[in-house]
């Protein structure tokens, strides 16, 4: 990310999001791909542009490269790689991750809920509470952004004391 033009940076992030959406499709996560597409290419880009429109898109000076973040990142990455060593192999149907709870969803949801899209079934029913939390998060974001960006109610006598 050495590109000085922030707009280009944002574009690159958009492309990254786009590619990851493609990857999600390939990894069978169509719903996720859908969402990532809508968010990454759509809303996220619009939001970043909206922000760039307000802050300008030129980085003023070249970023220096401090050492500490590099170390932090290397350590974090190293730890993760170390951790993956003992992870079950990619895509193996025998992995524990596919059996404990996932089995239940795949086998029982046709009887218990009866809709073909199991992701929706899990999302809205089995883990519906998470989804409520998700809705609340979105709502929270709106409240927070409103708190930050809402214009003041038009009261001329108060116009001065904002700074």
């Amino acid at each position, binding site marked *: 990310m050495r590109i000085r033009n922030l707009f280009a940076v944002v574009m690159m992030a958009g492309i990254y999001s786009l590619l990851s959406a493609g990857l999600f499709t390939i990894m069978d996560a169509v719903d996720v791909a859908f969402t990532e597409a809508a968010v990454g290419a759509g809303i996220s880009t619009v939001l970043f542009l909206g922000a760039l429109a307000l802050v300008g898109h030129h980085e003023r000076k070249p970023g220096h490269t401090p050492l500490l973040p590099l170390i932090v990142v290397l350590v974090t990455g190293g730890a993760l790689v170390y951790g993956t060593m003992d992870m079950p192999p990619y895509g193996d149907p025998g992995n524990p991750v596919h059996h404990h709870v996932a089995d239940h969803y795949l086998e029982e949801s046709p009887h218990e809920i009866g809709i073909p899209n199991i992701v929706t079934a899990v999302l809205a029913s089995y883990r519906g509470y998470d989804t409520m939390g998700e809705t609340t998060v979105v709502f*929270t974001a709106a409240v927070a952004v409103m708190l930050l960006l809402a214009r003041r109610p038009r009261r001329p006598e108060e116009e001065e004391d904002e700074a």
Partner: protein
Amino acid sequence: MSEHYVILLVLVPLLASPLCIFSRNARAAWGFAVLACLTSLYLVFQVWAEVMATGPITYHIGDWAPPVGIEYRVDAVNAWVLLIVAVIGSVVAPYARVSVEREVEAGRIPLFYAAFLLCFTGLLGITVTGDVFNVFVFLEVSSLSAYGLIALGQDRRALTSAFRYLIMGSVGATFIVIGIGLMYVMTGSLNMADLAQLLPQVWDTRTIKVAYGFLAVGVFLKLALFPLHLWLPNAYTFAPSAVTAFIAATATKVAVYMLLRFFFTVFGAPFSFDVMRLDMVLLPLALVAIVTMSLVAIFQVNVKRLLAYSSVAQIGYMILGISFASVTGLTAALLHLFNHALMKGALFMCMGCVMYRIGSVHIDAMAGLGKRMPLTMAAFVVAGLSLVGVPLTVGFISKWYLILGALERGWWPVAILVLITSLMALVYVWRVVEVAYFQEFPHDEDTQEAPWALLIPMWALVLANVWFGIDARTTVASAEQAAQTLMGGAP
């Protein structure tokens, strides 16, 4: 209906928050907030009483049995933390009305209460759930609203500090997500109780150890454990007074709860202390945090920032208690959760009162307030002494157990260090007291005591500081039971 109390205590503030948006009226929004907080408090209290009497409560959301569905599970530990959050919320909400009218623009007040309630909801939600991913979701609810609330501060630095909090908080949350993912990939479950049963089979894998590490770092970021505390001082300093009082008294407490829950319930104390040697990490960090942050606090000139640094040090005490890995140590940590919430809440509310009348919390602004605002400064003295750990205040009770825990482990240098740092607390509290009582009031004559709407909630907390310092049987029993629950493995 009483079996639904555990979910209702989260739902009530959650549903009140949209109402604040709908009402578009500052007073009405405040009314909703107070009502919701009090209702929540009532429900929490009922739940707490039931847990103390009959043991853990579980609630299957959506009628799906765990681990298929999400489960609410309240045992002595989260009942205790719920009580802390609900009490503080119920005190800060009434307090907020006058304070916020002064510090926040009129048009944003309904939004303020909406965000406040969401933060409250998020904290309760983190605490009450028995599902690790659900923790993350509610963590974000509370964090996002906290960012917004902190940014409302009048000083422009509120914005940068909120942003820094956002960055560090998001890193923390993402680390937690990574940790959860690694746990999930090894076990296939997200339910805490279920994970506690499944994890011992995979203890020796590197993946689980790394998951542990990521969860640890993520939670440390959230609870501002030294040296990951950098977001905290500014955030507390520049946020509106009511927000500081609320967040300082609850947010880090809930983060400590997360730490306890993950490391004691999910992974289990044997894994944390025998395999991962968590105590060897926590102990030095806690000690360094306590000493350095107390020292830094002594040299602050902004009283809110002083208190913020003191908070980081106090978090060190909690972590210290946890690092003892004993029932006494955990009791100390859990007691200090509650007690620190009471005292920091009260102290930051005092600063709110001063802000309300004087418009500044610089230490010079306190000059002569002992006479001008006697009730406010008296509250500061009492709560400050509680912070120091003077007997008959709650601070003493937690120090007592902390030292007892240290001596039980035979770590007497730690005990001495704790006592010495209490004196440092005395120094920074006393600096303020001296200015307030021994300097002349420099302003014009008509400055008077803060309004009752601020004083009453503040004094409620101050009196609680004293009350639970004189009769700590309930709190100690509750904390002790929680500590035993944690040490006993699965809840």
